[in-house]
């Protein structure tokens, strides 16, 4: 598993912030999220439900809907900065530069039009001047590359199985060969065998178009097999980003450690080790580090001072006071 840390990253996310203005108050769902990803790299994004994984994906697509608002930050794909694009520019960037395969692909296809029409309209909204037969060939090729029969082109969504619908969504995602693909829990509704197949499909099409892939999910086992990097989210912050090997053998952030330790293995079979305490409400985040009430290493400073992102050795990012001294100062991307 070689990662290309040094190469110019294709995706650079810097200081992304999203707030939901709810009736109960402001919920900061993304707080200073920073990371980057190289072409052909796969990053897994894990974290408890409600930690902001989908919000991060939607923010990168600029698809946060009211009452949510993107409050700041930049997202570069190559040389293009998405947050600065016009509405129309962003529309064109969706799918052609950055594709999002949504959580709940089961219902993501229009029930009343044929699958083919839904692939064709995606192409037509971005490229003009191609003949209809060229567009159709492109769509059929996309279906083939996700292991679907060409027959699917003429079917309706209700005639497909869950795994097939998921593949159709992936086929749509790769139609325009985007540089970044985000797959939000692409396998949570599938059986293990289909899960593997879908992941392998994502893997293969990623290689075909050399895209950077972000995989959102809860299944650490699946992550371990398929991604290069793992990012751990907690209460809207990326608390640790590391290679999959580092993350599994030597997690640094106390939350990441707890997460890895809670994974079942043959030695502690049958003993479910959760992380003590509850995930905090975004409306009433603890002061300082949001994890401190559940952290076994909490110090005084953790209760008062919000930790910054520390770039430590081998390119790892850890947002924790324990590593303030280890931080090496990297130019901000």
């Amino acid at each position, binding site marked *: 598993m070689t990662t290309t840390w040094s190469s110019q990253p294709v995706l650079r996310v810097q200081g992304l912030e999203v707030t939901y203005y709810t009736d109960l108050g402001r919920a900061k769902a993304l707080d200073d999220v920073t990371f980057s990803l190289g072409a052909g790299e796969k990053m897994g994004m894990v974290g408890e439900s409600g930690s902001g994984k989908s919000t991060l994906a939607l923010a990168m*697509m600029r*698809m946060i809907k009211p009452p949510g608002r993107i409050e700041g930050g930049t997202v570069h794909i190559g040389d293009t900065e998405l947050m600065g694009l016009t509405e129309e520019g962003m*529309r*064109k*960037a*969706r*799918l*052609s530069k950055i*594709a*999002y395969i*949504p959580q*709940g*692909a*089961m*219902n*993501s*296809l*229009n*029930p*009343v*039009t044929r699958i083919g*029409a839904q692939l064709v*309209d*995606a192409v037509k*909204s*971005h490229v003009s001047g191609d003949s209809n037969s060229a567009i159709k060939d492109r769509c059929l090729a996309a279906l083939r590359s996700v292991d679907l029969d060409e027959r699917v082109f003429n079917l*309706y969504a*209700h005639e497909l199985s869950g795994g097939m619908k998921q593949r159709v*969504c992936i086929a*749509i995602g790769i139609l325009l060969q985007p540089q970044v693909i985000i797959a939000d829990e692409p396998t949570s509704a599938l059986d293990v065998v289909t899960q593997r197949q879908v992941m392998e499909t994502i893997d293969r099409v990623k290689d075909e178009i050399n895209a950077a892939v972000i995989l959102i999910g809860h299944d650490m086992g699946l992550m371990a097999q398929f991604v290069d990097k793992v990012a751990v989210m907690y209460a809207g912050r990326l608390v640790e980003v590391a290679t999959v090997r580092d993350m599994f053998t030597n997690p640094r952030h106390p939350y990441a450690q707890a997460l890895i330790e809670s994974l079942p293995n043959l030695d502690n079979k049958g003993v479910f080790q959760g992380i003590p305490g509850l995930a905090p409400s975004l409306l009433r985040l603890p002061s300082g580090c949001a994890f401190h009430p559940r952290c076994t290493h909490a110090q005084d400073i953790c209760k008062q001072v919000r930790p910054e992102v520390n770039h430590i050795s081998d390119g790892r990012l850890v947002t924790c006071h324990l590593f303030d001294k280890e931080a090496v100062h990297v130019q901000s991307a």
Partner: protein
Amino acid sequence: MAKLILQRLAFLLLVIWSASTIIFFVPRMSSRNAIRERFAELARTGGFAPADLEAIISSMEQQFGLDRPLIEQYWVYLGNILRMDFGYSLSRYPATVTDLIVQALPWTIGLLIVTTILAFLIGNFLGAIAAWPRAPRWARGMATPFVLLTGVPPVIMGVLLLFFVGFRLKLLPLGGAYSIGTVPSLTWEFALDMLRHQVLPAMALVLGSVGGWVLSMRGMGITIQGEDYVTFAEHKGLTPGRIFRDYYLRNTLLPQMTAFALALGTIVTSAIVVEAIFSLPGIGTALNNAIRANDFPVIYGIVLFITIAVATIMVAMEFVYPLLDPRIKPQT
């Protein structure tokens, strides 16, 4: 498919039979006699009082078959229905019921069908926009006045329009299908005159019913916007126009078309009221006159005709549904 069509035709026949049976027996429970009343009216208005009145009446009853036992009349009647022969009008003899329907129908279709479709289109369009978050605020607000008018009955609406627009402002004629004194002809002048007479009744019908469509469409629109496939369409970077048309409107079509078919069924009720207020010829007026005169062949004819028309539309809709939504397969 052939089985399905046969099944639906059988259903249609059943509906027609039940409707015609009910229609046959209900007016016969009345003790009034249309022929006798016709002569009584003649006597009152024209002083025409033949000495052998009873003989004339009984000979006419014989001619219409009214002297025979009820059950025998019923069988004859059913046979006639099957041949689409509704017989003669009692009060407008020698006009046949079919003649009356054929005369009245174009007026009703022209006004009622057109306004129902118009209200449906306007209401659904405004409702769809009202629920569409990308639409400009002013466009979304356009539906509000119609919503406020929802449920104002056509009677009230008609009278208000007549009073303000027709009587006070004298902008449009007060009633009738065309100006008194003009002779119907195929000229632009006559067509224009006729249209001017249709504006107020049309407004009375449209204004009150647009709001209902706005409300149902807006509710549907909001639901469909929350659907994953609309969100995914945005992720795909589709143009807003295409999302609006193919993902949003297209999915509201089925429930709204069902409601539309049902709305067609209520047309006659509105026709009776509006045609009366604006003194328009039409099915509503014809039915109204027939009821007043106890002219039961005409009542049978019109009510049956309407029943058949509505039932046919409903059956036809069943064959249209699968075209609107592939998840629906015709049920045998």
